């Protein structure tokens, strides 16, 4: 098509202006894709932090738990729920837990905790800190009367390995029940908040203290964090007895909300960057159209319709955008790849190598997402944005009055 050749060659008419426009589009889109990469990386970071801090990607909870968040609530049929979860596509591992509020004491020291009853055989596949016991060991399957504590709890109790501590909880019909637990392992996460959330015993010990049989939750880890919603939906269809499935974002909405807030701020900054680029491109394109006013008048005189002229200018914009996309990819690919490989280290910003947020342990280094999505994303953004910026210049060209433009030119 001659019109396509015309559009493409027109991009090269004013080389200096074209280079500046292409570099502007390239840098703007490179910045945008870098921010998108980090946003996607942030999604994964939050999902991973939530999941590995014990929340899981998806959790099966009892009826009404969503509203009351009662740790003493138990699943209607935890064995069925666990079997359903294990057979759901995309699920990597599962574990069961039961919880109760308790006081743990040693000597004159007392600490309120959430006592978590676990299956020692499967718990390490879902909770990263019990895989990294600092002192001692983790619970063994079939073992009762033992406990693994977070370092902060141990410090407050002045307890060490092989010490016995007293756990007290509300039993059946409001009675106060106690049990002696031997400390077999201590976990030092590096975060006091995270340490305070670690007080694990065998699930049978919680049942014995509370008189509440069964599990209060089935924690599900997905093979790919992006599959959380699909797994929840699949589980919801197969659960019985009112038990329901929730994703990590629903379980920790403030955590997810914080992520969304961060992403929204990043999107806002990205929008401003793109707006500045768009205005620059629009200005350059308008200048190009104004310079060629006589040419557009001639094309109009030859019978080119306004719509065809708009398409012509937008074709030029598309060619300019494609060139900008090439520059953007040349800049962005190595940078995004580097940040996906080495990550962005926030330790200096947070002043600590470990920190928690809403009970989830956050990694201080977060990584950008690098994948094939970058190429179509950049091309679509560069071409789309440049065409958008060229709408006004195209409209301006299309309404050139040939008689006036040719009269002025003479």
């Amino acid at each position, binding site marked *: *098509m*001659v*019109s396509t*050749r*015309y559009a493409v*060659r*027109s991009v*090269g*008419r004013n080389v200096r202006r074209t280079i500046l426009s292409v570099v502007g589009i390239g840098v703007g889109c490179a910045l945008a894709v870098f921010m998108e990469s980090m946003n996607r990386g942030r999604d994964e970071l939050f999902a991973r932090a939530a999941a590995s801090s014990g929340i899981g990607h998806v959790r099966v909870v009892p009826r009404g738990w969503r509203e009351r968040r009662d740790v003493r609530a138990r699943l209607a049929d935890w064995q069925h729920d666990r079997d359903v979860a294990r057979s759901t596509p995309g699920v990597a591992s599962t574990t069961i837990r039961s919880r109760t509020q308790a006081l743990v004491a040693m000597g004159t020291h007392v600490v309120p905790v959430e006592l978590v009853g676990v299956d020692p055989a499967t718990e390490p596949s879902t909770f990263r800190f019990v895989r990294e016991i600092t002192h001692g060991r983790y619970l063994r399957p079939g073992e009762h009367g033992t406990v693994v504590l977070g370092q902060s709890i141990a410090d407050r109790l002045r307890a060490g390995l092989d010490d016995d501590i007293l756990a007290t909880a509300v039993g059946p019909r409001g009675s106060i029940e106690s049990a002696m637990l031997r400390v077999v392992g201590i976990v030092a996460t590096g975060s006091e908040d995270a340490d305070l959330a670690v007080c694990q015993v065998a699930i049978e010990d919680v049942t014995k203290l509370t008189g509440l049989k069964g599990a209060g939750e089935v924690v599900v880890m997905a093979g790919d964090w992006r599959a959380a919603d699909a797994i929840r939906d699949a589980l919801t269809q197969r659960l019985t007895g009112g038990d329901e499935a929730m994703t990590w974002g629903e379980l920790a909405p403030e955590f997810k909300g914080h992520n969304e807030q961060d992403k929204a701020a990043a999107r806002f900054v990205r929008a401003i960057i793109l707006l500045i680029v768009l205005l620059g491109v629009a200005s350059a394109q308008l200048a190009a159209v104004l310079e060629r006013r*006589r*040419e557009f008048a*001639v*094309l*109009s*005189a*030859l*019978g*080119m*319709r*306004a719509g*065809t002229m708009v398409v012509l200018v937008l074709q030029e914009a598309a060619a300019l955008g494609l060139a900008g996309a090439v520059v953007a990819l040349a800049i962005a690919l190595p940078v995004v790849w580097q940040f996906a490989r080495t990550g962005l280290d926030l330790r200096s910003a947070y002043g600590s190598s470990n920190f928690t947020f809403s009970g989830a342990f956050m990694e201080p280094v977060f990584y950008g997402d690098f994948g094939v999505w970058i190429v179509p994303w950049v091309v679509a953004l560069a071409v789309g944005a440049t065409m958008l910026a060229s709408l006004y210049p195209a409209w301006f060209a299309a309404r050139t009055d*040939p*008689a006036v433009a*040719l*009269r002025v*030119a*003479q």
Partner: protein
Amino acid sequence: MTDTIVAARGLTKNFQEGRHEVRALRGIDLSVDSGEFLALVGPSGSGKTTFLNLVGALDRPTSGDLIVLGRDIGRLSKGARADMRLRELGFVFQAFNLVPVLTALENVEFVLELQGVGRERRQRAMGVLDELGLAELADRRPNELSGGQQQRVAVARAVAARPRLVLADEPTANLDGENAEVLMHLMRDLRDRHGMTFIFSTHDARVVAHAVRVVTLMDGRVARDEEKPEEAPHAIVPGAGRLPAASGA
């Protein structure tokens, strides 16, 4: 048998220039028949270009009637006028106005593409260039052509779609005497061979000599309208032949 291609009655055109209203045409009465080779002459500001713009459906009259190729220009929509220019009119401009990023062949082909001509448009464009003795220049861009060559390409572009009426505004103003002579012979030859009607404005007495009818405009009115006996045409462009048959347009 001839028919009337242009019929103007009491044609006026005013337009604003800054704060002033310019009365470019003050009542033109003129008829042009099919196949005429008509020169519009007159001093600057006499209304030649304004008249050509109106006949070329680039503009609408302020008052009066203007019928071109059976259509009332004053009543046509913008789109209808664009369509008329594309399919039935040809334009040659003083400054050539070829698209600088396209080759000579592409400049001609572009008009055919706008018309919706399919695959044969390249062949047709090449045929037109060949007829006008420009085949060897087909792949050159305008900046690689002399002024005379550019204007011949512009004529090729104007006639490629086989319009019934070709309008040329000072087509020889930027050409030397020899090139002006070549161009006038070319246009006259096209008119004789294909029956196209040519209306051109000029200041150049040598160009006027080629015209069969000379209309003098003065202050926006027709001051004189004279016909001259036709001389036998002679082709001076080597390799001149017939325009390729129009099809698919």
